[in-house]
């Protein structure tokens, strides 16, 4: 019991790091998703193919392999990365590939008549996108973006495997010091992730019902 109570502050710090990772990765992923997704919705077929290749590559490769590559592989090619930076970068490109599909899907789902009407009013390509299509598409992106954030929080636990002291790593360190606290510690960690993620996925479901 004693060493369980002693562990609490480090778990809380770990949870803080988990949030930091998730929020930083989410911000990058949204930015990446908008750039790639918009490009893909506008690009002619020949240009779209390499973009599709990039998206499929980062969606298809396991996140852990990507993280290990960035952390252990890049320094070999002369690029030093810190643990946290490698974790955030891996999460960001992985989630960014998923985000670009969300953005592209939402843009494509806006009826063509909207674009045509805006064009008839004399708006240019970018003005149409910025003033007509994207504002409508945003509503459709919101629920999957919220769900994506839950996925990022969940996936950020992999950062523990490259020694980032997130929630899971904090738990591992405590268990290493005293194996007897494994049960309460890991149970706490499971519950903590659930308490964070359940409201997020509920919110995503509610939004989905309300906005569609």
């Amino acid at each position, binding site marked *: 019991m004693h060493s369980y109570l002693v562990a609490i502050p480090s778990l809380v710090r770990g949870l803080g790091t988990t949030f930091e990772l998730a929020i930083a990765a989410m911000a990058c992923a949204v930015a990446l998703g908008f750039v790639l997704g918009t490009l893909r919705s506008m690009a002619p077929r020949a240009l779209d193919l390499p973009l599709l290749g990039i998206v499929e590559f980062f969606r298809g490769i396991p996140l852990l392999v990507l993280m290990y590559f960035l952390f*252990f592989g890049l320094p070999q090619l002369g690029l030093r990365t810190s643990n946290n930076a490698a974790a955030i970068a891996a999460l960001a490109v992985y989630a960014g590939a998923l985000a670009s599909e969300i953005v592209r899907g939402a843009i494509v789902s806006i009826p063509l008549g909207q674009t045509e009407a805006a064009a008839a009013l004399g708006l240019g390509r970018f003005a149409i996108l910025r003033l007509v299509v994207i504002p409508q598409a945003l509503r459709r992106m919101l629920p999957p973006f919220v769900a994506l954030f839950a996925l990022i929080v969940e996936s950020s636990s992999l950062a523990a495997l490259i020694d980032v002291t997130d929630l899971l790593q904090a738990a591992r360190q405590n268990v290493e010091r005293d194996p007897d606290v494994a049960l309460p510690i890991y149970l706490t960690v499971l519950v903590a992730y659930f308490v964070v993620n359940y409201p997020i996925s509920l919110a995503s479901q509610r939004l989905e019902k309300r906005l569609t």
Partner: protein
Amino acid sequence: MTLEIAFFGVIGALVVGTIGAAMRISPAAPARAAATAFTEFFRNTPPLVQIYFLAFALPKLPGIGPHLILPAVVAATLGLVLHQGAINVEILRAGLQAVPEGQREAAAALGLSRLDQLRYVLVPQAVRISLPALGNNVISLFKNTTLVSSIGVLDLFGEANDVIAQILVSAELFLTVGVVYLICVTLLGTLFRALEKRLAFG
């Protein structure tokens, strides 16, 4: 090893998903509540943490704990089955509820028992509806098999790590491993699209 874990993982997750989905649409409230609690908990917690819990925390349970020391492969596979199984429950439940109510009523009118209604009428149609989502979940399970290396199981990824520890050429090896996974994932994706076409209505 990767293929073995993926194989048993997919089968286990399908079984969990089917049972859970049947419970979610059952008329008995306790069955519904139990299935919902299971699904929401395991869907919303990281599979990696579940694997750690099964491998390291379960054996510490007072009383029965020492009997629950699972071999690492079993703990890892079980963790994947729980997580992806919970996702399958949701997918199949949505599929089952998308089958028009008239189908179930017609099956009931023909005198089929509840189990037979599910088996012969509802599930075959629900599977077609759910197939794209199920396929994505299989691919996600396949990618998540990399997590098992973290508790010392030598899957494809674990083997690569072992080799790296010996000869220290990580960049190329990680790239190779990544490409192997990518090829498998692409093959799986193609397979599922073909299956969807085969089973499409009409």
